[in-house]
């Protein structure tokens, strides 16, 4: 598959048909055709193509509530996760502590851990009958278990922060590693205090990695499903769960497809932004 770098050989690539074959035979049935059918179904009414379903979707107050709660959840969870991730990465980089190496390794593996299991595990800790709640009850001699926030907004935020903060740690650490530490030392020797160094030197230089990590965190949080299903389906209506129940419980594929296309538009905008941002960096992600 190697190609010589002379411009002449570059022009007649022997394997130029391969991307076509991949596009038509592999990505066609796996990605393109299903998404095209989804879009088509969302646009088809009883009397041919129509946009009415979208108008109905956005006029429907229930749907608007679902949309607002989904976006509110996204804003709170992803911002907190990004802040925690950046703080954690700075701690691991600037002040390694005994065991920080192990914690870093562990965070690396955390990405392969299923999100619904995180949500499930939190029930044993923060649930009303969980370890922390009972510990507080015994400590403070309360009548009832004090914690009752897990199945709802608070619990979903907690689970999403725990699950997605590690996503931000990796790109932040990578861009901190590219930092020229002489600049930090110079700023310190010139008398800048730590916050000034962080704000004026570290943050501007490490910004590309932090921005990419934060954007990825927003994208993955928006696309999250398992945590919402385990902790959110009782008291909190969100778009992914609404799509899922319209499709599999009500067996109403057309209305599920409208919600799905709205969701898809939001996700793909974030995805396009993320790709643009990370392609601009030399060591960036795909």
């Amino acid at each position, binding site marked *: *598959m*190697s190609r*010589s770098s002379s411009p002449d050989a570059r022009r007649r690539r022997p394997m130029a048909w391969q*991307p076509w074959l*991949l*596009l038509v035979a592999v*990505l066609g049935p*796996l*990605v393109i055709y299903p998404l095209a*059918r*989804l879009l088509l*179904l969302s646009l088809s009414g009883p009397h041919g193509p129509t946009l009415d379903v979208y108008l109905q979707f956005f006029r429907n107050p229930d749907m608007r509530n679902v949309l607002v709660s989904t976006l509110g959840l996204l804003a709170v969870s992803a911002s907190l996760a990004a802040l925690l991730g950046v703080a954690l990465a700075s*701690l691991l980089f*600037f*002040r390694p*502590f005994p065991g*920080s*190496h192990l*914690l*870093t*390794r*562990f*965070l690396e593996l955390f*990405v392969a*851990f*299923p*999100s*619904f*299991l995180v949500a*499930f595990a939190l*029930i*044993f800790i923060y649930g009303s009958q969980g*370890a922390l709640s*009972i510990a507080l009850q015994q400590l403070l001699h309360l009548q009832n278990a004090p914690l009752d926030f897990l199945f709802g907004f608070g619990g979903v935020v907690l689970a999403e922060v725990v699950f997605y*903060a590690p996503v931000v*740690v*990796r*790109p932040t650490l*990578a861009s*901190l*590693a590219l930092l020229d*530490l002489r600049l*930090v030392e110079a700023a*310190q020797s010139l008398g800048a*205090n730590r916050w000034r160094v962080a704000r004026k030197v570290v943050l501007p230089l490490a910004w590309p990695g932090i921005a990419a990590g934060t954007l990825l965190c927003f994208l993955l949080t928006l696309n999250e*499903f*398992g945590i919402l*299903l*385990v902790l959110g389906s009782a008291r909190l209506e969100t778009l*992914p769960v609404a*799509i*899922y129940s319209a*499709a599999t419980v009500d067996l109403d594929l057309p209305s599920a497809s409208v919600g*799905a296309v709205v969701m*898809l538009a939001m*996700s*793909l905008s974030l*995805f396009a932004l993320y790709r643009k941002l990370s392609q601009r960096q030399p*060591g960036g992600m*795909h």
Partner: protein
Amino acid sequence: MDRFPPLAVLTERSSRPRAAWPGRLGLALAALLGCWLFVVPVVVVALSSLATHWSGTILPEGLGLQWFRRLGDSDWQALYTSLEVGAVVATLGTVLGIWLALALEGRTRRGLGAVVDTVAMLPNGVPSVVLGLAVLIAYHKPPVDLSGSSLIVIMVQLALVLPFCYRSAAAALRPELKILREAAQSLGAPPAMVLWRVVLPQMRPAIRASLALGFALSLGELGATLTVYPPGFATVPIVVIGEVARGYYLPASALSLLLLLLSLVALLAIAARDRNADARGR
């Protein structure tokens, strides 16, 4: 994400300004918080599956293997389905990922290459439920009806896993390794020989990572699988979710722990095989 050096390498740097960050106590608290947030949930899954009872107490009560002994036929069936789907998805994903990486090497910036690259990475940006719904709509009735076969689960998971496999293969095709390929080719090696004797050995670590990641992601996938799975093809996450919804927490823990062990075994097996191959001098 795979283009970055491993995190462990990044934190090993020794010369670092001792910035006046929070003092010792603050540091210890931060370290504890990190462990509490990230390590404890994983430990809890393991611990709860071994407990006789854990509700309304701080620590689990009565350790034992009873929940594992009580696993029923449907649980074992789900484990078998997960294993089977995971193996197929990881293998197909790795093969297609390598093919994509080789076919698109050096041409992802513009033209057709950029389009194929974007479409291959697209599932990374699509919510799993939405992709599941799209696949369900496309293949639930004639002309192509896959609604009764495990093929629909494999297809939807393959689409979700492919970006990760493609990315790890593409990261392995570094320019400095290309010289070896060009040398082999200029010495007259046929393309198949170049592929088998030069390219694939070069990519061995990437193939390993791709198989492991594909398997682990497939085992843990929930949203898309839950939307498309045909009756009788429930994977472990689906069974676990069902048990959690009905309040059977401890049996769900036992099954989850087996799921986690399965991905751990796969990761270790792949690592061990490679170490043996290295010891033999390939």
